């Protein structure tokens, strides 16, 4: 299976590579359009700030390529947020795959949310063999609201979308590569999901 991690200078992807290696998958880091188009699975990682990340996507034309992909695509953390319609972080338009805006947490909670929080109301094959109320590791200051594409919720001050799905596009706010066995199961599910 050919797995490509989209390369747009999105910070630390070493842990994600190692997590896939533990599942016996050697992922390729690439910004090459053909290589991305030919992949069986595409992972869109992201750590950092939304507007500079979006700028990098635009500079390379990846902003036009990603929404056109037909194979299963998984956005992680900022990757997921960039797949949404708009982000308050830098006031940018996202890729618009998920029709939901990304907002900053209110200051009635500590920001960033950092640590392990619970997934509830899970649906989708992405969560096969993962129990409802499982804990995943999260680090983020912005969140996607609940919407019709929500496939898992988390509560932090309010309930928000911890995972999203539309057709072949999946997004998770948590870091599966850092979420112990449950996170590894999620990556395994994504690699094995029907395309």
């Amino acid at each position, binding site marked *: 299976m050919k797995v490509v991690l989209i390369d747009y200078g999105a*910070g630390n992807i070493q842990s994600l590579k*190692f997590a896939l*290696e533990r599942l016996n998958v050697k992922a390729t880091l690439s910004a090459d359009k053909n290589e991305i188009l030919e992949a069986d699975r595409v992972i869109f990682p992201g750590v950092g700030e939304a507007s500079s990340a979006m700028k990098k996507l635009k500079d390379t034309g990846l902003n036009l390529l990603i929404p056109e992909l037909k194979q299963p695509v998984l956005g992680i953390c900022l990757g997921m947020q960039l797949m949404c319609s708009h982000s308050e972080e830098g006031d940018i338009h996202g890729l618009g795959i998920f029709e939901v805006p990304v907002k900053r947490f209110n200051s009635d909670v*500590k920001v960033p949310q950092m640590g*392990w929080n619970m997934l509830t109301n899970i649906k989708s094959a992405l969560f096969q063999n993962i129990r409802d109320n499982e804990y995943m590791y999260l*680090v983020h200051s912005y969140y996607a609201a609940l919407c019709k594409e929500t496939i898992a919720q988390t509560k932090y001050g309010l309930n928000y979308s911890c995972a999203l799905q539309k057709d072949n596009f999946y997004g998770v706010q948590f870091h599966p590569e*850092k979420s112990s066995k449950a996170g590894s199961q999620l990556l395994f599910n994504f690699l094995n999901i029907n395309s």
Partner: protein
Amino acid sequence: MLTKRIIPCLDIKDGRTVKGVNFVNLRDAGDPVELASQYAEQNADELVFLDISATEQKRKTLADLVRKVAHAIDIPFTVGGGISSVDDVEVLLKNGADKVSINSAAVKEPELINKLAAKFGSQCIVVAIDAKQINERWIVHLIGGKVPTKLDLFEWAKEVADRGAGEILFTSMDHDGTKAGFANKALARISEEINIPVIASGGGGEPKHFIDTFTHGKADAALAASIFHFGEISIPDLKKELKNHQIAIRI
């Protein structure tokens, strides 16, 4: 609900784990990669590696160790110790560290916090603060508590948060090594005054201390070293005890 985190801290010297009592006498507690894997297996929520070696080879050795740890474990970890530049941070993050912790370098050059937050994001920048009470004022100290600064703990905590730190790791030098409980009053005050997560460090000796720091101390996470390394408290037992006391915890 976001759970409270239990964080074992591994002091590293020349690629090996050590832990000082009151930061002076060092004892050998094993291979860091093996120890890290064990802690991940026991449901530790996160790990901190603090490099206390000071050799020329240091940076390379540490980067190699970070890579090995990232390869072996699937929970987040922070690396600290002698980090003083954007380049230092870049090497560690590229090798798989999730967060870095800076201490003296931030005091000497506060602007470094802004630079790191802008380049890598606040979420991976932890500012470690060591402080002790002098004439009833909490004063920030450097070099493992040996050198006092003029900084007031609470003012400094606010400044680092304003400059873009994602988290504060507060070690009370008065409590460190005592196993008599965390500095809960000071911790609670930090949590009340700033809006980023705070890790309590120094003084954890028994489960009650952890319960107290998560309730009275309002800490988001608690860090300890030797009590975990020498098996005085097992993480699964500690977490069970916390859960029994209605503390949100990942089991």
